[in-house]
């Protein structure tokens, strides 16, 4: 089964036929990200429509913990940098370097989630739930879905970290790291839009 997969994922490399020249994995990730962009644009549109139609809308900084959000923004941006470094190390075939930077990326993702958890629990302590107001509904749903994407990233990155022990020299490994990197940057970019939209505007 796995060899069948490997062969057809391989195909563009040895494929004598017509193709775009982009590897399957990369094309697939880009298409996946296109659908993700549609998903988050819909959520942002919802945010705009609801905000425009709302009788009142709180200032983000009155309700949310801006310093924590700020720290989280830095954490995610840093993790994007470490992700790039991990890819660079994989490119250099430096296993130790790859593993170090990948672990750092995963670690930072956990830091982000823990921060988010602290924020959430503070809200819950103050009796602020998604049902409290339309602002809270938007805040919890958007950051919650983003959080799920972060968890998804942790799973993908951890899998790669685990596989690097055995599959580091596999011809498809670098492509997989690149795909994971593209996804991780996307998750980062979504947060870079979310942070000002919810906390600062």
């Amino acid at each position, binding site marked *: 089964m796995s060899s069948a*997969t490997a062969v*057809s994922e391989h195909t563009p490399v040895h494929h004598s036929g017509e193709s775009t020249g982009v590897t399957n994995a990369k094309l697939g990730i880009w298409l996946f990200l296109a659908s993700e962009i549609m*998903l*988050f644009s819909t959520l942002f549109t919802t945010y705009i429509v609801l905000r425009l139609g709302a009788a009142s809308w709180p200032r983000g900084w009155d309700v949310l913990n801006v310093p924590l959000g700020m720290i989280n923004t830095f954490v995610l941006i840093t993790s994007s940098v470490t992700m790039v470094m991990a890819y660079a190390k994989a490119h250099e075939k430096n296993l130790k370097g790859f593993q170090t930077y990948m672990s750092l990326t995963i670690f930072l993702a956990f830091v982000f989630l823990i921060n988010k958890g602290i924020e959430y629990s503070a809200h819950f302590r103050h009796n602020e739930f998604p*049902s409290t107001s339309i602002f809270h*509904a938007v805040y919890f749903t958007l950051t919650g879905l983003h959080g799920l994407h972060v968890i998804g990233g942790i799973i993908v990155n951890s899998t790669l970290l685990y596989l690097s022990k055995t599959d580091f020299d596999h011809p498809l490994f670098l492509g997989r790291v690149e795909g994971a990197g593209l996804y991780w940057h996307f998750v980062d970019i979504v947060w870079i839009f979310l942070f000002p939209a919810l906390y600062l505007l």
Partner: protein
Amino acid sequence: MAHEHQDSQAHKSFYSYFFSTDHKVIGLLYIVTALMFLLCGFMLMLVMRWQLAFPGSPIPLLGRILSPSLAPNGVMTPDFYNALGAMHGTIMVFLGIVPLGVGGFGNYVLPLQIGAEDMAFPRLNLASYWFFLLGGLLMLSSFILPGGAAQSGWTSYPPLAIINPGQTVWLFAMVMLITSSLLGAINFLVTSFNLRAQGMKLSRLPIFVWAQIVTAFLLLLAFPPLEAASVLQLMDRIAHTSFYLPQGLVILGMRHIASGGGQPLLWQHLFWFLAHPEVYVLLLPAMGIVSEIIANNTRKPIHGYNVIVGSMIAIGILAFVVWAHHMFISGMSAVLSDFFLVTTMIISVPSVAILTSFVFSLRGGSIRFTTPMLFALAFLPMFGIGGLTGLPLGLTVTDIYLHDTYYIIGHFHYIVVPGSLLALMGGVYYWFPKWFGRKMDDTLGKWHFWTSLICMNGVFFPMFIQGLAGQDRRYYDPMAALHSVPTQPLHVVSSAFAGLLFLSQIPFIYNFFHSISHGEKVGDNPWQATTLDWACPSPPPHGNFTKPIRVYHGPYEYSLAGQKTDWAPQNEEVLA
């Protein structure tokens, strides 16, 4: 290893069927599963049709079996009627036609037609099937889960959908089905762009493949908004948010406890942003199949290849800017309606272009009236009726009166049932020899065709008259409104034909299963077709092609002058 025993046809276990990553096995699984779901959705409608024909009288047979909460004394309750309606729509669209046209035919035929060994991501392909199957079973099982099935229509407009029972399961199932479609779409696109055989330039792709490409793009870009919208509705139901609920609702005399601040119309915009492209998802694969069958059975190239492909792409793009023509009377800005009126009329232009190209393809042909050809030919006038009746609905002014009447039901059923579904059935007859190396029986096939065609018209045509008389849709008791009393006999006509339509599927079901083992054995290319799907053995082995494939020319080179045969396969060089 899994594919070792896939290669030996004789020893197929349950495991190798349901967990095979071979696109052909997955394709057939999709086809059989989708056909079963179609039958299921159809049977739900038969139960509803009883209530419509004879409102308030006990359902024969079934009435005794159903629990008293659904049908006390054998008479269905309004809630059960609404549940049947919502589930009929959902099952037919998301579990029937789309999986059949895209998951089934797309999976089986597309890799063959481009000369690929398999899909780009075989394991992802298997995952899509399983998401589809589990989502579908979850959707069906909602009838027996606490809360019952969804009963707010397949459109699930809030606030009704938020206060009605059953909706949570519907939303979870939808999220699974959407995931399945998204994975499938990515797979189809990568496969068609990256795995084409040598010489298979984009301009040489069969129209079926183009139809699948446009469909995949529609699924990829239109489904995520519905996924987001479903998540928001789920939040409204589970976390008691108010994305779709305004302030101060009073439901049956009780104040609804919710923060408010949301907008009911937001759902409609997000829903139709998917659901209009979805209409083309239902239609385009059928058009692709019709192109293949018509070219093959007229023995000449399809007329206006570029026009058809260009029109399909145009439809794919325009499909994203017509959604609000479903909302002319929703309370949306009346000026905005004018914009959507114009885009709607524009999108009819490529549709007409495709239809006329098909008709002109007949001219000069040598038409063989094979069973698949009958289905493909019937698609043309049926799609024509469906398209024409869309005109007074797409026009803002006349839509005021016809909106939400039986007229719209007649319209979209003509597009989907005697249109799409008939073409898809034709596809089953056309590719059956490829799947099993045997043909389906022609006599039974022709019986199936004529009875289905007549019955489908008998079911749906009366709806136009009822719609003009003002009969509102989704009515549990069609006699409740005085203006629909005179046309009530037409409900009896529709229902009678629906019953006959059910009976006329029996020859098909028998023919299908009987022919798998007993059909007439035919060679690899019984239709003398040109595309690559006929250049491999029937059924194709794992990896599909037994020899390296190279493509020399376009897909429909029939009746070339100075050749021995009247077809020139894509993988054979034409020597003058």
